[in-house]
């Protein structure tokens, strides 16, 4: 019996060893993702381009978007319906997800064997850059020429959707999509409260700080701020940094154009300023534990003078505050055009594996042409290209927003969102802002923390 046992255990050892070696070889041999030498990048660039959708035969077009808020949801539905009415041979299958759900599932969907035809891709290295690098999106340059996107959009909006085909250089190279909506981060103010303090709407950072101090001293909460969700921190820091660092420096930092550091004086001053606001109570107390929605609701209920947020909040504020809410963007100094974070909505892009690129392009054009922009505006959204006849009633927040959008986008005042900087920058920056405002980090250490993420990214690329 002992003989047998020994024989068996020996056999088992051999089997285990064989299995282990086999597994290891397997692990080393095949790697996750597409094959190492698979030529990533665009393959279907050349070839004739057709704009005749009616001749395409029966087509089912699948699109993924992030238009879940009432305004954009309604306009997308309306445009999809109109497109299908115009081209009865096309059926559009819409998949709509919230921004964060889209962000987490789009990668899996795109790398599947049967991806959607048209998707909304977020600008920047983490999303669009990664997709382009993996060859999942196709360049739309030829369509841009045919449909005139290259002339209709200002170049600073187009550039945000450009990438080199290896996905490594942003803002130049091929065009990978166009955007429907415009958006900027700015300052909402309570008109009645501002008037009672004897102040006009601030247009510079200095003016804004004066208003903050005056509100505080008269017992009014200066800013409604809730950073428990982490994203508002990016916006408030960005608004300050735009004014203290200036557009050249911010662009150098975010677009990785070299020669700028997050520890430079401009960014340091922004951190110092924001820390000062927190220390003086301008941001309220307990802001790191308060939700963004609560802060917006507080401002809408008249509990504070200002709210620093994006144009997308107008649809939430307007019904509650009517004409008592105004919107402004800050300039670095009096007389200069406003400068602020913003850009355009997610780009409508085409996947490389789409079997109907011509139909997909025609659909994208339908979304962004003059009629598309009009439908957007009709549903209360800020179109990226406001039509000449789009004139919101004077005194409404929509009129303020349109005026600021024009001032910012037409005078080269758009600054990129700071989380575009590196794939991990959203996490790094949001955590660091929470630590800065809570007094856990000095402005210097704050800059160093951002710079270390930045340096790691620069070394890797």
């Amino acid at each position, binding site marked *: 019996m002992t003989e047998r046992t020994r024989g068996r255990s020996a056999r088992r050892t051999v089997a285990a060893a064989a299995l282990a070696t086999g597994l290891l070889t397997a692990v080393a041999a095949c790697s996750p993702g*597409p094959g190492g030498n698979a030529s990533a990048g665009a393959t279907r660039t050349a070839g004739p381009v057709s704009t005749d959708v009616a001749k395409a035969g029966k087509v089912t077009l699948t699109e993924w978007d992030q238009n879940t808020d009432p305004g954009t949801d309604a306009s997308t539905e309306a445009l999809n319906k109109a497109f299908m009415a115009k081209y009865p041979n096309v059926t559009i299958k819409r998949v709509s997800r919230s921004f964060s759900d889209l962000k987490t599932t789009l990668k899996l969907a795109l790398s599947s064997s049967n991806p959607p035809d048209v998707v909304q891709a977020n600008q920047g290295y983490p999303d669009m850059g990664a997709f382009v690098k993996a060859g999942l999106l196709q360049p739309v340059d030829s369509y841009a020429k045919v449909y005139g996107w290259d002339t209709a959009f200002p170049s600073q909006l187009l550039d945000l959707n450009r990438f080199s085909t290896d996905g490594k250089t942003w803002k130049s190279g091929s065009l990978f999509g166009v955007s429907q909506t415009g958006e900027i981060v700015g300052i909402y103010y309570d008109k009645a409260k501002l008037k009672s303090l004897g102040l006009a709407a601030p247009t510079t950072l200095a003016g804004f700080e004066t208003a903050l101090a005056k509100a505080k001293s008269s017992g009014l909460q200066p800013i409604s701020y809730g950073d428990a969700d982490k994203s508002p921190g990016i916006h408030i820091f960005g608004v300050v940094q735009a004014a203290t660092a200036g557009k050249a420096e911010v662009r150098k930092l975010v677009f990785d154009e070299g020669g700028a550091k997050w520890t430079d004086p401009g960014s340091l001053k922004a951190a110092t300023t924001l820390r000062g606001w927190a220390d003086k109570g301008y941001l309220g107390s307990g802001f*790191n534990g308060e939700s963004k929605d*609560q802060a917006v609701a507080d401002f809408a209920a008249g509990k504070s003078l200002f709210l620093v947020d994006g144009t997308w909040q107008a649809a939430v504020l307007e019904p509650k505050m009517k004409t008592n809410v105004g919107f402004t963007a800050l300039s670095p100094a009096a007389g200069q055009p406003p400068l602020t974070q913003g850009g355009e909505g997610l780009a409508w892009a085409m996947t490389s594996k789409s079997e109907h690129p011509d139909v997909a392009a025609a659909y994208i054009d339908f979304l962004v042409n003059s009629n598309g922009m009009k439908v957007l505006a009709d549903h209360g959204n800020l179109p990226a290209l406001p039509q000449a006849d789009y004139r919101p009633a004077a005194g409404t927040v929509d009129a303020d927003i349109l005026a600021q959008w024009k001032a910012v986008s037409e005078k080269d005042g758009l600054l990129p969102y700071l989380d575009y900087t590196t794939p991990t920058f959203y996490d790094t920056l949001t955590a660091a802002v929470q630590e800065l405002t809570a007094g856990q980090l000095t402005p210097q250490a704050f800059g160093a923390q951002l710079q270390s993420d930045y340096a790691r990214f620069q070394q890797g690329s």
Partner: protein
Amino acid sequence: MAVTASRPTARKRPADAPGGRPARRRGRIQWKGYLYALPALTVLTVFLLVPLGQLVQISLFHWDGVSASTWAGFANYTEIARDPQLRAGFLHSLVLIFFFSVLPIGLALLLAAITTRASRLRGVSVFRALIFLPQVVAMVVTATAWTAIYAPDGVLNTALRAIGLDAVARPWLGDFTTALPSVGLIGTWLEIGLCLVLFIAGIGQIPGELYEAAKLDGAGAVREFLAVTLPGLRGQITVALTLTVIAALKTFDLVYVATHGGPGNATSLPAFEVYNRAFGTGQVGSACAIAVVLTVVILLITFLITKLQPEEDGT
């Protein structure tokens, strides 16, 4: 051989087995038996072992989730050791073990001991259902409700201010010192019901004579608890420890909903980082490496806990 013979299980076997059959049986592999296990084994392989193998495989690569990957060797693992934020995540997990396991088990033991003093409780089943309720409620709901309680103007702070404790009121989940314990206390609230139900059931199985004997010997409440209840509950305590420690280590949804790992990174946890890196920041290889380490840690700790199990239960 001498080692094997000294094991209680080995000693028992001859008595259990009538006749000489077992000797013959042991030598032969029962292929039919494997056949019966085949369906379960297939499911296990396809849905568990293969993904687990892939997890380990991907952890050895740098991969953004979509484009070609590059061989990383153990770089993703060494990064865990070097990255202070990841190390902090594992430390936060240890803190959570205190709140998810130690605290609820301690409290549940105390409560269970008190209930044993009551000779007969009316409506015990209702009581049990109530304390078990937190286990039934979806974690996202729990987290959302507790976020509202902990909010700057939430129930907790309102109550504190009402009794004049304004100085204590704070944004519990937004404060760097209180965020992690606050998340932990949600875990305590969650797990205490589970532990209590386990212990009350366990106490029901302890022979009443033992308590009588203890009383006759003049044992007080504390003595009775230490000499009768606690040893009698060893099995249940092991089960409770295993379940709650795993719950602590795999905590994700609670943090995802309540704090997003914030303020700063004060409540970031390994499981949260796994999700964040895999789906947020495109560091799939690193996410898998963290998942592997987390799995190994969980296995190791549960293995250590089973060592506490009374040996009689092991057969």
